[in-house]
């Protein structure tokens, strides 16, 4: 078995696609139509294009518990998932200029530095740098 997919619940796939590609810098890998206007929509890191794919999944619109869980994480400030970066401070500055909203500014915690931002699609996302 291989790990190839990470799913993120989003309220609006098109909006998520724009945010994750234009602001975060991911690249669209697969985009195929499913029923009811839903898409199988995946992204990859530009520097690791055969790496795991990020699935932007419209689950909260179709499965109530997913919505409840997503809302609860958002309210508590918990990140839905995290991405690795080389330099949290540089990425924070870059994203601030793109009007990305951070709930946690770059913070050191032991052997990592991290920050948390809002992906505008219902999730907090954490970026992490190992020190």
């Amino acid at each position, binding site marked *: 078995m291989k790990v190839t997919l990470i799913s993120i619940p989003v309220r609006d796939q098109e909006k998520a696609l724009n945010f994750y590609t234009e602001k975060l810098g991911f690249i669209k890998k697969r985009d195929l139509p499913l029923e009811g206007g839903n898409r199988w929509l995946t992204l990859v890191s530009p520097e690791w294009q055969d790496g795991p794919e990020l699935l932007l999944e419209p689950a909260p619109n179709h499965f109530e518990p997913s919505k409840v869980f997503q809302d609860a994480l958002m309210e*508590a*400030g*918990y*990140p839905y998932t995290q991405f690795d970066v080389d330099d949290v401070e540089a990425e924070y500055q870059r994203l601030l200029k793109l009007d990305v909203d951070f*709930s*946690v500014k770059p913070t050191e*915690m*032991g*052997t990592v530095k991290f920050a*948390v931002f809002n992906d505008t699609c219902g999730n*907090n996302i954490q970026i992490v740098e*190992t*020190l």
Partner: protein
Amino acid sequence: MTFYEKELNRIRSIVYSSEEQVKTVIGIRNYIKNNCEANLNLDLLSNIQLVSKYHLLRLFKKYYGITPKQYLIDTRIEKSKEHLINGMSVTETCFAVGFESLGSFSTLFKTKTGKSPSEYQKEQLSRSKINLEFSTLEDS
């Protein structure tokens, strides 16, 4: 402050209570990262940070979840990918990143990435060629 931040602060005060230990392991990791092609061993690392090698091993594993040796191998493999993409031969790459035997480099590379170094290189080089061809296709 969010519930998440409160939880992090609580965990930080338990897990990362020793600033000195954190400083030591970060120093070791940086040293490995910056000198990964050298012939590193625990004796050398423990001399640099002035801690016993068993203590060092235990600390590194405690804070990073892997041993210094595993971290060294991962760092070398990552660096070897860069060399291969830049067109360096497999043999040259092997020695440039600090491995001493071509056999163990190839085996490790395959275990970590799923491909042998030469397969990886071929794939990366053909990919950049394809990208080039596609971009000329779009231009014309």
